[in-house]
């Protein structure tokens, strides 16, 4: 066989193979052209390894729904997932790949504050939109030029809400015992300010040293102010000791703590009489929202948690912003995300519902599964729900979600 013949046969085979592949591809994909790629950068391993995979799953579920309804801008949406390993260095590598190689308009999912702080500059410099659950106040104070939103309440919002709850219990005298940590002083200051506005009072605050075996003198100092409620703003090992020392001292008022400081393991490690009546608080999904009901069905879960619902909202917000902007770029999402999440448009509770209305030329206001998803200028949420539990007989009982 001559060489010329061999070449032309190879070309023929290549061409037929290409045709065969094209013929096997479903019509819907062919109609949509190149897929629209969105970046996901969650911790699949490391400290965030419990939340990251669930967040990625929640985003995928929203995108599957969007694709089933015809995709975005006539294109199929594909999530490109990178593992940030809960490690800033690995996260920067993952983000670089998403930004430089995949050229995504948005990265969704950073979890640890250190990771978000490392990735955010890459995002705003490349005009890539970033959504996160990191809670440190400093995150939204970065010069991100609007290329970042977070759905997690920051310290300031949390402290304010906690103080409102405490005042709503009729507490007149509150004392705050805080561990030495970056969040302690801002939390004390904000709670003091809000209590004062609500005719309640912070009668004293104290920041204690961690890693002590007893806090008797600190407890004495707190009890001298006769508080009705003591806010224990620390971590599990020290809050456990404080609960013991408060019990020993005969304190009978209320005790209030973050849910990560009084966990079910803490309840197991202490006799029930010591923890009886402790109230815990944590940011909550908006369980009364229709968007939450939809998330439950979409994820086939009885109670999607705060992280799953926040991830649901990112995928929805980014999809809706692209649909509103009619262009899949970081600038487009940046300019349009607040136009679909807040304002006087028709309230919608899912991405597909919103995309349909946008196609009809209507304005929308997305209300999420994690909360109303209204953002301040620097990208913080304006409001969110909190879950309050009370310890009864060594077990948690839901007090309310508000």
């Amino acid at each position, binding site marked *: 066989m001559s060489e010329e013949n061999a070449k032309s046969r190879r070309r023929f085979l290549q061409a037929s193979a290409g045709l065969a592949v094209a013929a096997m591809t479903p019509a819907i994909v062919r109609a949509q052209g190149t897929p629209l790629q969105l970046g996901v950068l969650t911790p699949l391993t490391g400290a965030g390894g419990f939340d990251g995979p669930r967040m990625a799953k929640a985003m995928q579920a929203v995108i599957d729904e969007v694709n089933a309804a015809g995709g975005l801008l006539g294109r199929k949406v594909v999530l490109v997932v990178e593992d940030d390993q809960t490690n800033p260095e690995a996260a920067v590598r993952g983000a670089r790949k998403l930004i430089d190689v995949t050229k995504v308009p948005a990265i969704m999912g950073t979890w640890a504050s250190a990771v978000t702080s490392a990735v955010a500059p890459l995002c705003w410099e490349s005009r890539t939109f970033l959504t996160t659950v990191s809670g440190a106040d400093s995150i939204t104070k970065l010069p991100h030029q609007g290329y970042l939103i977070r759905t997690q309440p920051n310290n300031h919002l949390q402290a304010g809400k906690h103080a409102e709850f405490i005042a709503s219990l009729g507490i007149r005298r509150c004392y705050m015992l805080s561990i*030495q940590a970056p969040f302690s002083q801002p939390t004390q200051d904000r709670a003091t300010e809000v209590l004062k506005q609500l005719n309640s009072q912070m009668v004293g605050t*104290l*920041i*204690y*040293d961690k*890693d*002590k*075996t*007893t806090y*008797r*003198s*600190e407890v*004495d*100092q707190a009890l001298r102010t006769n508080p009705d409620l003591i806010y224990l703003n620390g971590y*599990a*090992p020290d809050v*456990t*000791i404080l609960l*013991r020392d408060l*019990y*020993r*001292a*005969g304190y009978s008022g209320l005790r209030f703590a973050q849910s990560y400081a009084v966990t079910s*393991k*803490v309840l*197991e*490690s*202490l*006799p029930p*009489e*010591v923890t009886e009546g402790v109230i815990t608080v944590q940011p909550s999904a908006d369980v009364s929202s229709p968007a939450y009901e939809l998330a439950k069905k979409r994820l086939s879960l009885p109670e999607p948690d705060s992280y799953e619902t926040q991830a649901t909202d990112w995928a929805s917000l980014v999809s809706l912003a692209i649909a509103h902007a009619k262009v899949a770029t970081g600038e487009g999402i940046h300019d349009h995300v607040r136009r679909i999440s807040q304002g006087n448009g028709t309230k919608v509770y899912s991405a597909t519902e919103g995309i349909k209305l946008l196609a009809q030329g209507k304005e929308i206001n997305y209300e999420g599964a994690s909360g109303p998803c209204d953002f301040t200028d620097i990208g913080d949420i304006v409001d969110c729900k909190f879950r309050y539990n009370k310890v009864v007989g060594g077990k948690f009982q839901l007090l309310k979600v508000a």
Partner: protein
Amino acid sequence: MTSLAEVPQLVVNGVMAGTILAVPAIGLTAIYAVLRFPNFALASHATIGAFAGYVANVRLGLPILPSIVLAFLVAGAVGVASDELVLKRFRPAGYITTAIASIALTIALENLVRFTFGNELRGYDLPIVRDLHLGTIRVGPQQLQNLLIAAIAMVALFAFLAFTRTGKAMRAVADNPMLASIKGINADVIGRIVNFVGMGLAGFGGMLIGLDTTIDPLTGFRSILSVFAAAVVGGLGSIPGAVLGALTVGIGEELCLLFLSPDYRSAIGFVAILLVLTLRPRGILGQAAY
């Protein structure tokens, strides 16, 4: 800020905290006296003792006293084994190398505990009792009991060192290893005994700390700096010094609340180290530095 009227209460709190600190501090100082290196593996042995006591108390349902004896025995046995297998080989390389090896050892052992028991907080099966009010002073019955147990252990140790042949041999090695060996005292055997007693006391102290708090793999590590401070302030190598040092650190940390915010409490132990080492380099009751 705390007022002067609170001084008696602060002193009581300090004595109770200091007594518990004294038990592992004695262990550290005893090992130093005989083997001449600060054994930081004390931290993980305190944790191991606390967990051994936990297994005895919660899993096997034993009362607190036998559990505490078991904490002593298990931590002591692990102490002898870890010294024979690991630290002994480092000793010819000098005390700094051995001290650094002991830090590595403590991290390894701590992770072994983490691997076996997990990271969760655990508590002993012990009801928590309300404090007694004696006039204006508040005292916890459990803490009084811990104080008593610690005091009995210290008296037993002093009796052991003062009246038994082995105890005297230990003191002889600590005082002058060369002379002791000429007299036919086997330094290796004494080394094992001091490790058993020293690490046993660490485990004992670990459980006492756990009785008052909760335990997790970091229980020993959290306290080791205060224990070290107590031993150094009292004079490394002096057992009465360790007790005095622990009380100084314990009471000092409490009294500092009169003029400092509680978040500076840990700093007091180290200020005490600086002061003592500047004014009296061998510690309050320390022997002359070798």
